[in-house]
Protein backbone atom coordinates (compact mmCIF):
# COMPACT_ATOMS: atom_id res chain seq x y z
CA UNK A 1 0.00 0.00 0.00
CA UNK A 2 1.51 3.30 -1.10
CA UNK A 3 -0.01 5.40 1.67
CA UNK A 4 0.97 2.96 4.48
CA UNK A 5 4.46 4.33 5.06
CA UNK A 6 3.56 7.98 5.70
CA UNK A 7 0.75 6.80 8.03
CA UNK A 8 3.13 4.49 9.88
CA UNK A 9 5.65 7.29 10.11
CA UNK A 10 3.10 9.72 11.54
CA UNK A 11 1.80 7.14 14.04
CA UNK A 12 5.37 6.35 15.08
CA UNK A 13 6.08 10.04 15.72
CA UNK A 14 2.84 10.57 17.65
CA UNK A 15 3.47 7.44 19.71
CA UNK A 16 6.93 8.72 20.56
CA UNK A 17 5.42 11.86 22.13
CA UNK A 18 5.96 11.63 25.87
CA UNK A 19 3.47 13.03 28.37
CA UNK A 20 4.53 15.47 31.03
CA UNK A 21 6.64 13.46 33.55
CA UNK A 22 4.65 15.08 36.36
CA UNK A 23 1.29 14.04 34.91
CA UNK A 24 0.64 11.53 37.71
CA UNK A 25 1.44 14.13 40.38
CA UNK A 26 -0.74 16.65 38.54
CA UNK A 27 -3.66 14.20 38.55
CA UNK A 28 -3.20 13.40 42.26
CA UNK A 29 -3.11 17.13 43.08
CA UNK A 30 -6.28 17.71 41.03
CA UNK A 31 -8.07 14.81 42.77
CA UNK A 32 -7.10 16.29 46.14
CA UNK A 33 -8.20 19.78 45.09
CA UNK A 34 -11.61 18.52 43.89
CA UNK A 35 -12.01 16.41 47.03
CA UNK A 36 -11.31 19.46 49.25
CA UNK A 37 -13.69 21.57 47.19
CA UNK A 38 -16.40 18.93 47.58
CA UNK A 39 -15.79 18.77 51.35
CA UNK A 40 -16.04 22.59 51.55
CA UNK A 41 -19.25 22.53 49.51
CA UNK A 42 -20.75 19.86 51.77
CA UNK A 43 -19.79 21.89 54.87
CA UNK A 44 -21.31 25.01 53.31
CA UNK A 45 -24.54 23.21 52.48
CA UNK A 46 -24.69 21.75 55.99
CA UNK A 47 -24.35 25.27 57.44
CA UNK A 48 -27.00 26.61 55.06
CA UNK A 49 -29.31 23.70 55.95
CA UNK A 50 -28.77 24.27 59.69
CA UNK A 51 -29.42 28.03 59.39
CA UNK A 52 -32.50 27.31 57.28
CA UNK A 53 -33.79 24.81 59.85
CA UNK A 54 -33.31 27.31 62.69
CA UNK A 55 -35.10 30.05 60.69
CA UNK A 56 -37.94 27.64 59.84
CA UNK A 57 -38.27 26.57 63.49
CA UNK A 58 -38.34 30.22 64.62
CA UNK A 59 -40.96 31.09 62.00
CA UNK A 60 -43.01 28.05 62.93
CA UNK A 61 -42.79 28.96 66.63
CA UNK A 62 -43.89 32.54 65.99
CA UNK A 63 -46.74 31.36 63.73
CA UNK A 64 -47.97 28.84 66.31
CA UNK A 65 -47.67 31.49 69.03
CA UNK A 66 -49.66 34.02 66.99
CA UNK A 67 -52.35 31.53 66.02
CA UNK A 68 -52.74 30.46 69.66
CA UNK A 69 -53.36 34.07 70.76
CA UNK A 70 -55.91 34.68 68.00
CA UNK A 71 -57.89 31.56 68.92
CA UNK A 72 -57.92 32.55 72.56
CA UNK A 73 -59.32 35.98 71.68
CA UNK A 74 -61.99 34.50 69.36
CA UNK A 75 -62.92 31.93 71.95
CA UNK A 76 -63.33 34.60 74.60
CA UNK A 77 -65.48 36.81 72.38
CA UNK A 78 -67.54 33.80 71.44
CA UNK A 79 -68.05 33.00 75.08
CA UNK A 80 -69.00 36.61 75.76
CA UNK A 81 -71.35 36.64 72.80
CA UNK A 82 -72.80 33.35 73.96
CA UNK A 83 -74.56 35.33 76.66
CA UNK A 84 -76.37 37.33 73.99
CA UNK A 85 -77.03 34.47 71.64
CA UNK A 86 -80.77 34.57 72.25
CA UNK A 87 -82.18 37.74 70.71
CA UNK A 88 -85.06 38.75 72.92
CA UNK A 89 -86.25 41.18 70.25
CA UNK A 90 -87.84 38.29 68.39
CA UNK A 91 -90.34 37.87 71.21
CA UNK A 92 -91.40 41.50 70.90
CA UNK A 93 -91.66 41.58 67.12
CA UNK A 94 -95.38 40.69 66.97
CA UNK A 95 -96.08 43.26 69.58
CA UNK A 96 -94.10 45.80 67.60
CA UNK A 97 -95.90 45.00 64.33
CA UNK A 98 -99.27 45.16 65.99
CA UNK A 99 -98.41 48.57 67.33
CA UNK A 100 -97.24 49.67 63.91
CA UNK A 101 -100.42 48.62 62.13
CA UNK A 102 -102.78 50.12 64.61
Amino acid sequence: MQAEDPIDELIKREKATEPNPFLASRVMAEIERRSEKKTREIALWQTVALAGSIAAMAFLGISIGNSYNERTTSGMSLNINDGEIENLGYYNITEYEQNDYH
Partner: protein
Amino acid sequence: MSDEQLIGEITAGNDAAFKTLMEKYQLPVFRTTMGFLHSKEDAEDVTQEIFIRIYQSLNTFQGESEFSTWLYSITVNMSLNFLRRNRRKSMLQSLEPFFALRSEEKNPLEELESAERDKRIRKAIDSLPEKQRMAFILSRYEELPQKQIAAIMNRTEGAVEQLLQRAKENLQKKLNPTIGK
Protein backbone atom coordinates in the same frame (compact mmCIF):
# COMPACT_ATOMS: atom_id res chain seq x y z
CA MET B 1 1.33 -5.90 42.55
CA SER B 2 -1.53 -7.01 40.28
CA ASP B 3 -4.31 -4.69 39.12
CA GLU B 4 -6.81 -6.45 41.41
CA GLN B 5 -4.57 -5.93 44.43
CA LEU B 6 -4.02 -2.28 43.52
CA ILE B 7 -7.78 -1.74 43.09
CA GLY B 8 -8.38 -3.37 46.46
CA GLU B 9 -5.86 -1.00 48.06
CA ILE B 10 -7.40 2.04 46.35
CA THR B 11 -10.96 1.20 47.40
CA ALA B 12 -9.62 0.77 50.94
CA GLY B 13 -8.47 4.40 50.78
CA ASN B 14 -4.81 4.05 49.78
CA ASP B 15 -4.18 6.94 47.38
CA ALA B 16 -0.55 5.93 46.83
CA ALA B 17 -1.84 2.73 45.20
CA PHE B 18 -3.83 4.85 42.77
CA LYS B 19 -0.68 6.74 41.83
CA THR B 20 1.04 3.39 41.17
CA LEU B 21 -1.88 2.26 39.00
CA MET B 22 -1.79 5.54 37.12
CA GLU B 23 1.95 5.34 36.51
CA LYS B 24 1.42 1.85 35.11
CA TYR B 25 -1.28 2.92 32.65
CA GLN B 26 -0.68 6.59 31.91
CA LEU B 27 1.40 5.94 28.79
CA PRO B 28 -1.11 3.60 27.06
CA VAL B 29 -3.94 6.01 27.92
CA PHE B 30 -1.94 9.00 26.71
CA ARG B 31 -0.98 7.24 23.45
CA THR B 32 -4.60 6.33 22.76
CA THR B 33 -5.79 9.89 23.37
CA MET B 34 -2.97 11.12 21.11
CA GLY B 35 -4.37 8.86 18.39
CA PHE B 36 -7.72 10.60 18.63
CA LEU B 37 -6.62 14.17 19.37
CA HIS B 38 -3.14 14.53 17.78
CA SER B 39 -2.25 17.25 20.30
CA LYS B 40 -0.01 16.74 23.32
CA GLU B 41 -1.77 19.35 25.48
CA ASP B 42 -5.26 18.04 24.73
CA ALA B 43 -4.11 14.45 25.21
CA GLU B 44 -2.67 15.35 28.63
CA ASP B 45 -5.87 17.15 29.66
CA VAL B 46 -8.05 14.23 28.60
CA THR B 47 -5.69 11.72 30.24
CA GLN B 48 -6.03 13.69 33.48
CA GLU B 49 -9.83 13.67 33.25
CA ILE B 50 -9.83 9.94 32.46
CA PHE B 51 -7.84 9.11 35.59
CA ILE B 52 -10.02 11.37 37.75
CA ARG B 53 -13.08 9.54 36.35
CA ILE B 54 -11.40 6.20 37.08
CA TYR B 55 -10.64 7.30 40.65
CA GLN B 56 -14.24 8.43 41.21
CA SER B 57 -15.87 5.35 39.68
CA LEU B 58 -13.45 2.60 40.65
CA ASN B 59 -15.97 1.25 43.17
CA THR B 60 -18.36 0.57 40.27
CA PHE B 61 -15.79 -1.66 38.52
CA GLN B 62 -17.19 -5.17 38.90
CA GLY B 63 -14.10 -7.06 37.75
CA GLU B 64 -16.09 -8.94 35.11
CA SER B 65 -13.61 -7.79 32.46
CA GLU B 66 -9.91 -7.01 32.65
CA PHE B 67 -9.18 -3.63 34.27
CA SER B 68 -7.24 -2.59 31.15
CA THR B 69 -10.29 -3.33 28.95
CA TRP B 70 -12.47 -1.16 31.19
CA LEU B 71 -9.82 1.58 31.19
CA TYR B 72 -9.48 1.53 27.38
CA SER B 73 -13.24 1.76 26.86
CA ILE B 74 -13.40 4.81 29.16
CA THR B 75 -10.41 6.29 27.32
CA VAL B 76 -12.03 5.84 23.91
CA ASN B 77 -15.39 7.26 25.04
CA MET B 78 -13.87 10.27 26.78
CA SER B 79 -11.61 11.03 23.80
CA LEU B 80 -14.60 10.93 21.44
CA ASN B 81 -16.64 13.12 23.83
CA PHE B 82 -13.78 15.62 23.97
CA LEU B 83 -13.64 15.71 20.16
CA ARG B 84 -17.41 16.29 19.92
CA ARG B 85 -17.23 19.16 22.42
CA ASN B 86 -14.13 20.79 20.92
CA ARG B 87 -14.56 20.19 17.20
CA ARG B 88 -14.09 23.86 16.32
CA LYS B 89 -11.12 24.30 18.63
CA SER B 90 -9.38 21.21 17.26
CA MET B 91 -9.76 22.57 13.73
CA LEU B 92 -7.96 25.75 14.78
CA GLN B 93 -5.23 23.69 16.41
CA SER B 94 -4.59 21.61 13.31
CA LEU B 95 -1.47 23.61 12.54
CA GLU B 96 0.00 23.09 16.00
CA PRO B 97 1.88 19.84 15.16
CA PHE B 98 3.70 21.65 12.37
CA PHE B 99 5.40 23.86 14.96
CA ALA B 100 5.71 21.14 17.59
CA LEU B 101 7.36 18.48 15.43
CA ARG B 102 9.83 20.60 13.48
CA SER B 103 12.93 18.78 12.44
CA GLU B 104 16.36 20.36 12.13
CA GLU B 105 17.24 18.01 9.25
CA LYS B 106 14.61 19.37 6.85
CA ASN B 107 14.63 22.65 4.99
CA PRO B 108 11.57 24.94 5.32
CA LEU B 109 10.01 23.69 2.08
CA GLU B 110 10.37 20.04 3.11
CA GLU B 111 8.97 20.86 6.53
CA LEU B 112 6.00 22.57 4.95
CA GLU B 113 5.36 19.58 2.68
CA SER B 114 5.75 17.18 5.59
CA ALA B 115 3.35 19.23 7.73
CA GLU B 116 0.84 19.33 4.90
CA ARG B 117 1.09 15.53 4.45
CA ASP B 118 0.66 14.96 8.22
CA LYS B 119 -2.37 17.21 8.20
CA ARG B 120 -3.96 15.20 5.38
CA ILE B 121 -3.25 11.91 7.15
CA ARG B 122 -4.75 13.18 10.42
CA LYS B 123 -7.77 14.48 8.56
CA ALA B 124 -8.19 11.12 6.83
CA ILE B 125 -7.95 9.21 10.14
CA ASP B 126 -10.36 11.66 11.82
CA SER B 127 -12.87 11.34 9.00
CA LEU B 128 -13.13 7.55 9.37
CA PRO B 129 -16.48 6.35 10.73
CA GLU B 130 -16.36 6.26 14.54
CA LYS B 131 -16.17 2.47 14.97
CA GLN B 132 -13.50 2.11 12.26
CA ARG B 133 -11.49 4.89 13.87
CA MET B 134 -11.73 3.27 17.32
CA ALA B 135 -10.56 -0.09 15.96
CA PHE B 136 -7.82 1.54 13.88
CA ILE B 137 -6.39 3.62 16.76
CA LEU B 138 -6.47 0.73 19.26
CA SER B 139 -4.81 -1.51 16.72
CA ARG B 140 -2.19 0.87 15.34
CA TYR B 141 -1.39 3.19 18.26
CA GLU B 142 -1.71 0.60 21.02
CA GLU B 143 -1.02 -2.52 18.98
CA LEU B 144 -3.73 -4.35 20.91
CA PRO B 145 -4.76 -7.82 19.77
CA GLN B 146 -8.11 -8.07 17.97
CA LYS B 147 -9.52 -10.07 20.87
CA GLN B 148 -8.97 -7.21 23.31
CA ILE B 149 -10.21 -4.60 20.81
CA ALA B 150 -13.36 -6.71 20.43
CA ALA B 151 -13.82 -6.76 24.22
CA ILE B 152 -13.30 -2.98 24.47
CA MET B 153 -15.73 -2.26 21.66
CA ASN B 154 -18.18 -4.97 22.71
CA ARG B 155 -18.02 -6.62 19.27
CA THR B 156 -16.94 -9.96 17.91
CA GLU B 157 -13.38 -10.48 16.69
CA GLY B 158 -14.71 -10.95 13.17
CA ALA B 159 -16.47 -7.59 13.31
CA VAL B 160 -13.26 -5.90 14.49
CA GLU B 161 -11.30 -7.52 11.66
CA GLN B 162 -13.88 -6.21 9.21
CA LEU B 163 -13.71 -2.71 10.74
CA LEU B 164 -9.92 -2.70 10.44
CA GLN B 165 -10.08 -3.85 6.85
CA ARG B 166 -12.60 -1.14 5.97
CA ALA B 167 -10.54 1.49 7.79
CA LYS B 168 -7.49 0.46 5.76
CA GLU B 169 -9.44 0.63 2.51
CA ASN B 170 -10.95 4.00 3.37
CA LEU B 171 -7.55 5.47 4.23
CA GLN B 172 -6.13 4.07 1.02
CA LYS B 173 -8.93 5.70 -0.96
CA LYS B 174 -8.57 9.02 0.81
CA LEU B 175 -4.78 9.22 0.74
CA ASN B 176 -3.50 7.42 -2.32
CA PRO B 177 -4.39 10.17 -4.81
CA THR B 178 -2.26 12.65 -2.84
CA ILE B 179 0.30 10.68 -0.80
CA GLY B 180 2.86 8.21 -1.95
CA LYS B 181 2.91 9.25 -5.59
